[in-house]
């Protein structure tokens, strides 16, 4: 049990501030991440993603609930975090030290100093030629790469990445995607990934949770979540009337000659029946697979 579930959150809440200045950041969230999975943790800005990640890393104490990594409570059994590598909310380093020295300091702090491993990580993230320059001269992308090297320095079982593609160029994003996939598929690591690049998440994650206003509003296998909701593209005339009659029942987006309707799979016939009943001419109906991005925008928009 302890090694099959990498992360377990039980009714975790976090409220910042006191009395009338209380701001709930996370509200009673529970989730489990199985070992070996690539788990996407999605949400709009301010949804509570980073607060949750910081609680997993024992940087923030939860107001209620408990967090477990490989079955051990992260607060009372802090040493379990030695199995975790994390890049939390933008890489940050000692600006006056070189990239290599920063990694040395972190490795020594974690009691796992190995000069050869540091060099390997610098090679892997493509920073070997700039490792001996001070970090204050690094670009955001370079810091992000160094952050990834720092997270993987001690060969952790669980890797937590909070917006790892921030500051990376398109080629860097592509590399990062491959890197994350390899972490799970080739190295057998568990990856907990928070990202705004939903296309990337859709491609690499087995399972996702969507958090909004501190609460998890959807959770499941990516394919199942997307299959549960169908996007119907209907070619109909007049478009205005079609939009008007469907809007009270389903989310509708009108285009020039078509309308897009988000419905549950078994509601598709009802859409057509409604249009026909209101004398809208239906020329074509086709089902399109919804992207994770569309799904995300739809569920977070609806919850808002």
């Amino acid at each position, binding site marked *: 049990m302890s090694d099959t579930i990498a992360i377990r959150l039980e009714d975790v809440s976090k409220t910042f501030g006191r009395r009338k200045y209380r701001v709930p950041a996370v509200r009673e969230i529970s989730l489990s991440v199985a070992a070996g999975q690539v788990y996407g943790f999605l949400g709009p800005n301010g949804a509570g993603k980073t607060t949750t990640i910081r609680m997993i890393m024992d940087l923030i*104490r939860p107001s209620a609930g408990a967090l477990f990594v490989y079955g051990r409570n992260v607060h009372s059994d802090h040493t379990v975090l030695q199995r975790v590598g994390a890049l939390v909310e933008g890489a940050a380093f000692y600006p*006056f030290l070189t990239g290599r020295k920063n990694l*040395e300091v972190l490795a020594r702090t*974690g*009691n796992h100093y190995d000069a050869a491993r540091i060099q390997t990580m610098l090679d892997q993230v493509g920073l070997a030629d700039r490792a001996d320059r001070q970090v204050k001269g690094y670009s955001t992308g370079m810091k992000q790469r160094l952050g990834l090297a720092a997270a993987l320095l001690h060969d952790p079982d669980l890797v937590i990445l909070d917006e790892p593609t921030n500051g990376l160029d398109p080629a860097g994003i592509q590399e990062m995607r491959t890197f994350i996939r390899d972490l799970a598929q080739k190295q057998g690591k568990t990856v907990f990934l928070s990202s705004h690049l939903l296309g990337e998440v859709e491609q690499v994650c087995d399972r996702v949770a969507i958090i909004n206003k501190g609460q998890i509003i959807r959770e499941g296998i990516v394919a199942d979540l997307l299959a549960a909701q169908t996007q119907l593209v209907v070619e109909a005339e007049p478009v205005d009337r079609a939009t008007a009659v469907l809007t009270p029942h389903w989310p509708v987006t009108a285009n020039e000659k078509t309308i897009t309707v988000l419905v549950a799979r078994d509601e598709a016939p009802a859409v057509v029946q409604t249009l026909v009943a209101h004398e809208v001419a239906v020329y074509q109906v086709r089902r399109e697979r919804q992207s994770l991005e569309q799904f995300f925008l739809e569920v977070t928009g609806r919850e808002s």
Partner: protein
Amino acid sequence: MWNLYHAELQKTVGNRWVVGFLLWIFPVGALGVFLFLGLMALAMENFAQNMFTDPPLWTDSVIAVWGFPTNTLVQMLLLGLTAVTFAGEYQWGTWKNIIPRHRRPALIGVKFLTLGTLVVFSFVLMSIIVGLGFAVLTRIADVPYGPALSAAVLRQFAGDYALNAALAFITVLITAVYAAFAAMLMRSMVGGIVVGLGFVIIEPVTAFLFMPLAAWLEWDWLLHIVRFTPTYNVNNISSWVRFDTPTNLSHFFFEMRNLIPPVDSMAFSLTVLAVWLVVGIGLILVLFQRQDITG
């Protein structure tokens, strides 16, 4: 623990400008002063002779270096170094990298240990430079530089040196506790320095603040609060070390001498200082243990 200490040392010393201006300035400054005086002595006739109205003693000049850390200006520099060491982790956003790698109390403890060893190293180096600097100057001036080395002199010197160094170290540590507490509370280097400086300035004058209140309320016991402040106790220990008597409070305010008789033993003062350090570091640990790292 060695690895953790090595990591802390690496990042503290790696901050070259800060450590240069706030710590290495003491031995380097001493070296500069002696180089200047040496050059002047070589260039100007009678310059060296005029410097020494009384022949200096190497024992006194070397030990005198440990008076520096008790000077308010020097304390301000060390306060700055402590504030950077503690608040820097907030400002650079680096706590999030190291907290998951080690327990919080150890991370705080090692900062005090590293600062302590660096300060001791810096002032030991400075005292060696001062001792050798005077040796060179007295040689140029052709004046004696005693006392002559003997087992008894060395034994006496070692004892006095250790006592003075320990006293300075305690003073520095108390200053560091003020600065660290302020830095961790404010999560800012400047805030840590300003508030820490406030503690350092206000603490010795608490006696003065209590005097009118004690007179107005006719509560003489209120004045005795001064006996539990670090400044009083450092002075008391210093007085025992130098004159073998308790402090007469003349360094506070003249009237204090009449109000509070000199009674406290060195053991009393050592106990009070130990309590201050334990409570101060304990407060920092509790504060840090409960703190959310959001930056």
